[in-house]
């Protein structure tokens, strides 16, 4: 399982580095928020997998919708003059660490 995750991540990074695509500079900020949300989703998925409560549909939709929502909120915040992206960073950051902590505990129990 871990091998699969790390291996696929590496393949993805290599493909991404080879691709001649760049995000537009204006949207790079929103993209980074989206990536944060995606990271959170992935860790959430792994956690669910270890808890045996994994659901592909929830995982995939969560991944896409969270990313889009986070980017959208950051964009809206910029339009309104409120630093809404900070809220996204806070929420997803906290959840990321929570998920990581839970995964760590499972791993410790397992081995």
């Amino acid at each position, binding site marked *: 399982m871990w091998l*699969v995750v790390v*291996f*696929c991540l590496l393949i993805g*990074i290599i493909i991404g*580095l080879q691709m001649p695509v760049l995000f537009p500079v204006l949207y790079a900020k929103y993209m980074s928020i989206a990536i944060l949300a995606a990271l959170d989703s992935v860790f959430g998925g792994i956690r669910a997998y270890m808890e045996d409560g994994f659901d592909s549909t929830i995982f995939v939709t969560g991944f896409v919708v969270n990313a889009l929502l986070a980017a959208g909120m950051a964009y809206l915040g910029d339009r309104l003059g409120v630093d809404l992206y900070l809220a996204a960073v806070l929420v997803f950051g906290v959840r990321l660490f929570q998920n990581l902590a839970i995964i760590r505990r499972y791993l410790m129990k397992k081995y």
Partner: protein
Amino acid sequence: MRNRNAQLTIAVICMVLGIMLAIQFKTQENINDTLMPGRVEELSQQLLEVTKQRDSLSEEVQSLRDKLQNIRQDNQAMADIQDEMIKAHMAAGTIPVKGPGVILTLNDSTHSLQTGENPNYGIVHDYDLLTLVNEMRASGAEAIAINEERLTAVSEIRCAGTLILVNWVRIGPPYVIKAIGDPDMLTSGLNIRGGHLETLKILGVQTNLQKVDNMELPAYHGAMKFTHAVPVVTQANEAQ
């Protein structure tokens, strides 16, 4: 089976995440490498300005070279024109001049104010300088400078808060007015009974008038720009 399915999903999503991460890395690096758009605009604006300046300067160099070439073709007519030019320059105040004259130094009164006294009385104003300069000109001054600011045909003497503007340069007390001309004429002109200098003395302004055998007045440093006035060419001018 469910397990395999889950692993596949996670694997695919991880790959997507990896691609996103990599592209974001590259983008971020690209942003750090390139200048911000606003800065680019500013720099290109500057470049444009400097280029324009360079072009105009090189044009000026060309015209000056042409003039120099003309001057080198030294003949009598040219020498006459040179003479005229120097006279015009002296009148305009664009070249330094030297000669005998007077130095008039004015400073604000040291007398401490009593209640009810007008503080304006002991102070040198722009109109004091103007009146004195006028007096000097009436007495035959050929070149005048106030605190090393040469008075030209377009110079102003104007109050600017606590200081005085001459040639758009702020000057403050003590005011040293140097005038080239006949020292005796200038001195008697300034010391005339009931003249402005006498009034200033009565008001408590510190004055000092001295004759000088030889002194130098600086040239006007600014640019002579005529944006509105153009010379009228008459028959007589053309004949010359």
